[in-house]
């Protein structure tokens, strides 16, 4: 049996676990509802406006969602003793961690994308302007910009999920897992950016190196990617710079490092 096949079986098992956990389904539903509510309340009318309205809610909600879906994945197996059973099968650490990640990722992405698609449905129906005698044009608004945002949000969710899987692999108890998980979410939402703020306020970094520094914070990297790829084409003044590349490298780096680390700490080879 190839290692890919084994990973697929692990993924299937993880996916079913999520589907059988009502708490997670309720959480996903709540997330979809919140995004829809934001879209409805903001009455954006345009895709680019919706992107801006959703940016902060997404930045907060996606890490919470991803950690909720991920932090017990391996920890649950470990506590129930199933991890020991799994080790008796000819499954490599890479296949196991990869499979867990894939299975959970499909579930997380399904929720994340469902929320964004639902929010977008409000745009065509909420344009409150009708001046039939007046010529209109497309402005810079475009569904294309929203598609970019959807893709970036999905990527962001994958990165955060990788961190959640690392927490899950590293934790040795429920309490420890919860503490690590909450700590990681707080770090993502506040910690990294606060640290960057401290260095900035202390005069340790200049404006130029801030771009690179931001890539170290997954949330900020995601945010700058959104600005560069969706807001900048609209003519809003976003400073020039290698933000997109640096942020992409940063995000990818976090995902790769987290999954690799999870593979090493899940059990001793």
């Amino acid at each position, binding site marked *: 049996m190839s290692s890919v096949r084994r990973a*697929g079986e692990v*993924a*299937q098992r*993880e*996916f*079913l676990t999520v*589907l059988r956990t009502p708490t997670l389904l309720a959480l996903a539903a709540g997330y979809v509802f919140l995004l829809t509510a*934001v879209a409805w*309340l*903001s*009455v*954006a*009318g*345009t895709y*680019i*406006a919706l992107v*801006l*309205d959703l*940016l*902060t*809610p997404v930045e907060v909600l996606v890490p919470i969602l991803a950690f909720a879906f991920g932090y017990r994945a391996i920890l649950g197996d470990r506590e129930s003793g199933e991890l020991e059973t799994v080790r008796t099968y000819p499954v490599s650490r890479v296949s196991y961690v990869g499979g867990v990640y*894939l*299975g959970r990722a*499909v*579930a997380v*992405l*399904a929720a994340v*994308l469902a929320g964004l*698609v639902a929010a977008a449905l409000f745009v065509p129906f909420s344009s*409150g*302007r*009708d*001046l039939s*005698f*007046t*010529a*209109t*044009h*497309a*402005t*810079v*608004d*475009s569904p*294309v*910009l*929203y*598609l*970019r*945002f*959807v*893709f970036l949000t*999905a990527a962001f969710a994958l990165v955060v999920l990788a961190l959640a899987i690392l927490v899950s692999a590293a934790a040795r108890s429920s309490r420890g897992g919860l503490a690590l998980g909450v700590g990681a979410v707080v770090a993502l939402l506040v910690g990294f950016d606060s640290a960057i703020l401290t260095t900035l306020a202390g005069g340790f970094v200049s404006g130029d190196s801030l771009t690179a520094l931001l890539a170290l914070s997954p949330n900020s990297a995601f945010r700058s990617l959104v600005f560069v*790829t969706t*807001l900048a*084409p*609209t*003519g*809003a003044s976003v400073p020039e710079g290698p933000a997109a590349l640096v942020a992409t490298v940063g995000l990818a780096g976090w995902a790769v490092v987290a999954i690799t680390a999870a593979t090493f700490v899940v059990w001793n080879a």
Partner: protein
Amino acid sequence: MHVTHAGILVGVVLLVSATGFAATPSGGESLSPVPFDETLSTGMTGVDIQQADSAGYVVPRAEVFYSQYEYVVGYYGMDALVNSLDAAGGTEQFGRPMAIFVTDLSGTEPYLTEEGYVRARNSVAQGWVRAEDAAFVVDSGARTPGGPATLPFGDRVDAERFADAHGGEVVTWSTVRTRLAGGETDPLTRLAERRADQQQWANDSVAGARELLDRPTSVVVGEDAPTLATAVERAPPNSTVVVPPGTYDVNLTIRKPVTIAGSGENTVLHGEGNGTVLTVRSPDVAVVSLRIEGIGDTRVGQSAETEAWDDRIRLIYGRGDAGIRLADAHGALVQNVTIETPANGVVALNSTGAVVRDSTVRGSDRPADGFMGVLAMYSAMVVEDSEFVGGRDGVYTHYANGIVVRDNTMSSLRYGVHEMYTSDALVGNNTVTDASVGLIVMTRPAGNALVDNRVTDAEIGISTAGSASYAVGNVVTDTAVGISIGTDRSLYARNTVVDNGVGIRAATLLPTNTVVANDIVANDRPVSVGNRGTRNIWATDGTGNYWGAVPGLDRDGDGTVDRSYRPDDAVDRVAGRSAGGYAFARSPAVGTLRQFQQAIPGLRGASVVDPAPRTEPVRPAVLERVRKEEDS
């Protein structure tokens, strides 16, 4: 459910979203011009454009497609275009211009008339060209009714040919932008300077007209002559005809400069319901201290097909019956005259410097049954200290540039003061009650001042249009809509707007008005915005308006609240009046949404933001007095 199936589904959605990076959002390259009458247009006055259209003069136009504004903005004249592109906050509110199209005169074979107006021998050839591809002829002596014109050509050769024939210089778009930028002095500064001069001009006109009261008596009706008509016939120019108490049947035309002096309300000129009672066809005629009744009830004249752009208006509106008709009666005076009329009180045509003062016009009970108190056409005149009750409009102006209407009271009518095609008017210190609209300016004029007026109990207090105008120091109470702003580049300051359904309605297209230092208090809704505007920012130099209690604190004691106020926002609207709303305004959820709604305003619905609401009223004494009146 199998993970592979879900995975494929998720993968497909991801692939679709990834196409967002393959496609580039449209730039301006694919845009093409739209019919000009489908744009939201600005620049030049309504009069200038009407005149140009009816005379067949070319007015160069432009269309701009802004990146964040879905409506195409049209400009009359290159000056308006350049000034708008350079205006502070313009790009912030509309985004950058994705495409600018200007009139293409190539192929139209344009030439100049003697006055310098541009006509085209082949006007159907007129098209559009992108501004960056056009060649412009500047300083050629070409003009529009609004002033000197810059002419765009799609083909540089045509531009050069025109410049060779008519003078001027051929330049590129970037040169035009730098040349025309800042060309016009700040219209509001000019207006403020002009206002004092205009009051002085009105004082001088009144003083000049009042000298007509000092003419020696030559004829007394009833003693020296049997009728008023024979008295006027016998009176030498520059003398006074005295009309003792009594009722006189009159339908008289006065063709020499005399003063007709009654002895007050007891001297009654009666027209027997037949046409206009007194027609004045001479300068420097005075009609004083009498009463006019029995005016005919023809309110409008017959229309006819004629040349000038406003013949229809002149013939229909200017031919109605009146108590006194002034025609070419420059410097005439109507003083202490009471007029009961089913049609007009005083009609003034081509009577610049005429004065109507201390008089009363009583019109019909229903506005639809009456007409104008004073109807001023082509007459820069003065209407002051008079009272207008009933009828349609108190003072109606048509192309009466420079008219001064001050210190009057108007009540129980449709409009108090109604300005049509009239620029540079000064309407000051009038009181209007019980009207559909207190003061209304229509037809896109420029340079009008509405100062220190009081409007109460109306559907709309003050309704403006045009550009470079201002409304300062007015008090508006008990209306459905206090001030309806339809202008651009205009100033609204030191107004007191209390107890109205809507305090200020921002119905304007381009957010170029300055709305500061007003006291807007205790209205059901402080502000409403039209559906086609964008974000209006109502503050200058860090101070805005006074809205009563608004959420936030003045922590640095600079007299303004540290939180911006959005008078049309669902939360802020109630926050001034309810403790719950005040607390809710501090909610992080509300704050976060607000924060993001500040971005790309052009793609949002219209809104008003006061970034620095005042903690104290601008005119506390006025506000206190008005509120006391409202309570009692």
